[in-house]
């Protein structure tokens, strides 16, 4: 007695292949699809003010620390208050349409509501000062901000990405005077310089859970 038509037999290899490929698909979905490398890199929200880092940090070559003042001393690299903008813009193009929101903010005292681009989860403890004072350049994590019209996330900021550097920081260490430089390039292999700096300053980043998850 045949319950099923004969052509169904042909589906069996298809089923086997489907099951095998399905397993690979699920694993790659977890490994790559759900990774911040795929989901978060390239995030560049439109900001309330069309502020151009390319102009300020690139063309005008302002130092990062002119605006992000706390980066060497505190966990957070402060987003500057409107007053910092007005230091210059009180005199430079105060009538510009692009600056309308900044000028308004200076008048009312209500800060500009910038959209956060680099946002770590709340359960991650990250300290800018610890990294900057040991010679991890801004550019290492934030990319060439001096070329960005609008800030975009360059690095995945995933746990794996953090760990990569914590396990071997030497390629990303530079002499402290070049920390904010966007264009500094090592004259010798970066790893060599990094190794010297690490030895000199006893840089041994921890990979314990509690280093970042406190």
């Amino acid at each position, binding site marked *: 007695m045949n*319950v*099923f038509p004969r052509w169904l037999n042909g589906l069996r290899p298809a089923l086997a292949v489907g099951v095998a490929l399905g397993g690979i698909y699920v694993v790659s979905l*977890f*490994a790559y699809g*759900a*990774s911040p490398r795929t989901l978060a890199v390239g995030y560049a929200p439109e900001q309330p003010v069309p502020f151009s880092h390319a102009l300020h940090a690139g063309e005008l070559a302002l130092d990062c620390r002119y605006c992000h003042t706390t980066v060497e001393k505190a966990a957070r690299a402060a987003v500057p208050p409107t007053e910092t903008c007005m230091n210059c813009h009180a005199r430079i193009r105060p009538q510009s349409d692009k600056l309308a929101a900044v000028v308004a903010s200076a008048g009312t005292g209500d800060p500009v509501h910038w959209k956060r681009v680099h946002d770590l989860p709340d359960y991650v403890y990250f300290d800018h000062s610890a990294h900057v004072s040991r010679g991890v350049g801004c550019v290492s994590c934030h990319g060439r901000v001096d070329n960005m019209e609008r800030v975009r996330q360059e690095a*995945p900021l995933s746990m*794996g*990405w953090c760990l990569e550097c914590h396990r071997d920081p030497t390629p990303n260490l530079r002499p402290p005077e070049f920390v904010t430089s966007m264009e500094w390039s090592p004259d010798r292999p970066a790893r060599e310089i990094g190794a010297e700096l690490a030895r000199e300053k006893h840089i041994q980043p921890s990979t314990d859970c509690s280093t970042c998850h406190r």
Partner: protein
Amino acid sequence: MAGDAHGNAPATASRSWFRPSLVEGDQDFASVTRRVAGVVERPKPPRAWYIAITISGTLTLVLFSLVAYLIATGVGVWGNNAPAFWGWDIVNFVFWVGIAHAGTLISAILFLLRQHWRTSINRAAEAMTLFAVCCAGLYPAIHVGRIWLAYWLFPVPNQMSMWPNFRSPLLWDVFAVSTYATVSALFWYMGLVPDLATLRDRAVTPLKRFLYGFFALGWRGSSRHWHRFERAYLILAALATPLVLSVHSVVSFDFAVSLVPGWHTTIFPPYFVAGAIFSGFAMVVTIMVPARQLFGLKELVTVRHLENMNKVILATGSLVGLAYLTEFFIAWYGGNAYERFAFLNRALGPYSWAYWLMVFCNVVAPQFFWFKRVRTGLLPMVAVAILVNVGMWLERFVIVVISLTRDYLPTSWGHFTPTLVDVFTFAGTFGLFFTLFLLFCRFLPMVAIAEVKTVLPAAHPHAPQGAAGKEHAHA
């Protein structure tokens, strides 16, 4: 009749080559099929089935709601707290994994040892194994608290560069239990295929024909099918055999590899395996006795089968008792003050009631199986089996909770009290277990039809043609 029930060969000289009959009554090939398939094919199950599934179904719903509550709220709904971070969740996990050991032992080890009496009970025992693994597997999954992160247990490449710690016995546990579940499921399903084909061929409605036919995988019963089936069955039995020993050994490593006094002992793997087989057989007896009454399978699952299982219970129960004695002896002989305290505290400390109840249930109760009347009487054997189940649960409670609440530092001592959620979750797993078992009884052949036929007198190469046990008359 009584002589046959206890496996004595028929006295008549002309049939002296008969093996001791493993089934009772006037059974031939057709009647075995009718008897077993009849359970599935009758239009309505017995009234007791409805009553049982109502109760177990309700408990299952309780389980599901409590699991949902746990996931929504957190593991704080359980009594686990410092210093007893392992509570009923682990106790119940080990309890259910232990129960799951009988099925594969009966199917694989007894198969390799050519113990033909396994044929009538292996199907139901394997099903029971699977359902017990379902109950067991639930606990590790939900006790992690954030269940949506449970995939961290598996080596899946991920953005966190997180990889399971292969030196941790907790990880070995994941693999041991999931391997066991996979192999048991395969073994059980493969054994079912010829019987599913029987049900397909007897099915009267198109839906049943479709469903049984789908799962029968096109079985036609040709010699080639049988040849390959038996080969595959043998291979799977050989694969499953080490698992019977390995799974509970690995579960015992969860404790033995730690440094907690009362856990850190080398006797744990064999002691856990003996305990697991002990509890598994007790559970098989507990549910097979009512099941065979309810579904009219008394002639296939005979008192002899039950008696054999009771002998296994007696043997493993004595092994467990020996392990208890050895633990105490080593605690004294080893001279380690913490170890010595841990064991004195078990027997005399705040949970001594659990310890002595455990000793009574696990060591004293099975000793009654030395008496044939207890071994072959339905009520006494169920009573002992239930006591053994209680005792084996208490054993895990004693190991997990007593050791954790009294470790090295008296300042970190504490007391464990389960919450109502603990209690009803555990009751709910019984609901899940029995619901699955009742559904199995109703929709699948609970005795391996094809295998039982091989032990019928009629299957013997020298059986009279067409006789099929007909002349096997009973007074």
